[in-house]
């Protein structure tokens, strides 16, 4: 048993919590509450007045085919980019952990992408993936018309997935590497002496021991793919072609700020918040069971 210091008095505990609670209230509950209120009204953008409309905003959004298309696109984006970013990072971290030649160099370099702001990296990928001028121009030379993100929705979706995954590979890599290095060397060495190969050691020892990290990254990646995709979409595709990459977070921005439909955007952000909450609960409820913390 660990020894714990306990306070008899509630007040001290609450006092300690107050600054944090105030921060959360000011920067989360208050704006979120405001968003709920806006989503139940029709707001005039200049603040001239508003009308209570109950759940009308939600009804009109949920009966709109474009919105369901946006939800599908977001889920596809979240699923593929999370899978890609985590898988690549896992492989890279496992290799770096094996102290192959140059691993100290990779360790530093692979962390960099996370440090780049989304719009900046989107700009870079726009050049790299440009069908007429960039790297893909070479591919198009061989197979004309193979790559056309300007009109082909699947190509555009692939572009933003590549850009987003590239950024999060760096982030995931840090955590995976730390997790690998926290595994006692003696365990690996003992297994090696028993004659198990690299893959076997990975499957039976390393992988089970890093499941808490995998779970943590899964939750973070999925959440971030719903939120942090904004800058990439804005620069690379602006939600096009024909709404193929109009992810939920981008639609909120364009409806709310460009279209000045504050109420509709507020309702959409409530739906997005609920979706992320549900997804997170789902992950904790069903996937966390398979995680061994100790």
């Amino acid at each position, binding site marked *: 048993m660990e020894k714990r210091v306990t306070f008899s008095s509630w007040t001290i505990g609450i006092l300690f919590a107050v600054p944090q609670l105030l921060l959360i209230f000011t920067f989360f509950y208050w704006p979120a509450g405001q968003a709920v209120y806006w989503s139940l009204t029709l707001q005039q953008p200049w603040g001239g007045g508003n009308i209570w409309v109950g759940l009308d905003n939600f009804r009109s959004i949920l009966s709109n085919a*474009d919105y369901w298309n946006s939800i599908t696109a977001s889920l596809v984006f979240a699923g593929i980019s999370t899978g890609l970013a985590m898988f690549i990072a896992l492989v890279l971290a496992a290799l770096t952990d094996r102290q192959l030649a140059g691993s100290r160099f990779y360790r530093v370099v692979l962390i960099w992408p996370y440090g780049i702001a989304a719009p900046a990296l989107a700009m870079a990928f*726009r050049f790299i993936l440009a069908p*007429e001028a960039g790297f893909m121009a070479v591919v198009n030379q061989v197979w004309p018309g193979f790559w056309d993100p*300007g009109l082909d929705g699947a190509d555009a979706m692939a572009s933003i997935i590549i850009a987003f995954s590239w950024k999060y590979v760096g982030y995931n890599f840090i955590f995976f590497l730390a997790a690998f290095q926290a595994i006692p060397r003696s365990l690996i060495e003992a297994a090696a002496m028993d004659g198990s190969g690299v893959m076997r050691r990975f499957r039976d020892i390393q992988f089970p021991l890093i499941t808490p990290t995998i779970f943590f990254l899964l939750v973070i990646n999925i959440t971030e793919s719903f939120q942090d995709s904004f800058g990439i979409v804005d620069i690379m595709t602006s939600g096009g072609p024909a709404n193929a990459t109009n992810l939920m977070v981008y639609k909120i921005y364009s409806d709310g*700020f*460009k279209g*000045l*439909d504050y109420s509709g955007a507020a309702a959409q952000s409530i739906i997005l918040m609920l979706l992320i909450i549900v997804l997170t609960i789902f992950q904790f409820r069903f996937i966390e069971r398979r995680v061994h913390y100790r």
Partner: protein
Amino acid sequence: MIKNGLAALAAGAISVAMALPAAAAPTKFDFWFGLSGDLARVVDTLCKNFNASQSDYEVVCTSQGNYDATLQNTIAAFRAGKQPAVVQVYDVGTATMMLSGAYKPADKLMEENGYKIDYADYFPGIARYYATSKGEMLSFPFNSSTALMYWNKDAFAKIGKTEAPKTWEDVGADLQAMKDAGYECPMAINISANESWQLMEQFSAIHNQPIATKNNGYDGLDARLEVNKTKFVQYVTDLKTWYDAGLIKIKSKDLGQDMVQAFASGTCQVIMTSVGDHGTVGKTQKEGMNWDVAELPAYAGTERKNSLVGGASLWVLSGKSDAEYKGAAAFLNFIHDPKTALFWSTNTGYIPVTKSGFDYMKSNGFYDKAPFKGRETAIASLTASEPTEITRGIRLGNFTQIRAEFGTQMQAIFANKVSVQEGLDTLVKNGDAILDRFQQTYPGKTLP
């Protein structure tokens, strides 16, 4: 009451202060605008010139990056009571501004401060776009442009033409001839939200075709789109046919080269874009390339009407002090001056907005010299006819969203996901939902 008293005291103090010549500090007021890069530097110079021209007022000019951000930031500032005195709002934001109740009518402001502005001096095509349905000017036209066709003289010479095509029928034949002569990209277009301007809006005006009922929205918030049953359907069908035949290529920044670059580099031979790009093409063109601008073509047998103005106007916001309004009025008067028009047009691609400005520039020989020659075509296009009920402009709420919907449906059409008619029907359906929502947001209100 106390507040009013204080304001009166302050106003009194200011007027006393202004009566004392040397000791007075100039009254400061804010001007927010949505241009960036080179254009922002020109605006800054304009502000400096205004501040140097007199000592009573000082304008503080701040770029907000782009038109969308300017409107968003102004709304946020207005809701917090920290709005600028003067703000630049783009053409399609006009309906939103008119219903905002957040402005001071420009004509009233000028009258109250003793400036006489001859509103008949504005080109009607420009003035009507920003005026109420009764013709009052609520804001002042500022940076203005219209769409033109840029054509490569060398490529047309190869197919034996010395003049730009005037009708769309000719355009089709010429593009085919250029294709046959070995040109990879006879014409470039783009089909994002931004091109709604030259493809849908300018086309409809020139052909006197409505974009929406109720005279494009001037006569009521219950206007609804009707571009799925005008000549515009034929136009999109033709563009799509030419695209399928390889006569038109899509060029956008996302794909590596936008159409202005494609034209300037000689890759594509015809584009349709703003006169504002005239300078850019001139500065970045391939060495020795011969090109010119012409009015946008029209279908054969069309009685040609004026094209629409694009750009932005200056709004004066409510809730500022009398002293600031005096400054704002002086600033607007300064911008109205023909000399400012010459400075503005020389340093940007924008056109003068008043006849006197245009005449002043002509008398200065502005349009005779090489880099600016051709820009007078924009004035010819804007003044091709007296504006009709339909070619006055577009007065639709949340039009930015309708433009976005235009881009979406055009992309679906060009990617063969839907037919032309289906795409335009969806554009009308979704656009009407946007208009319906706008109308619901302002119950019982009418456009001035």
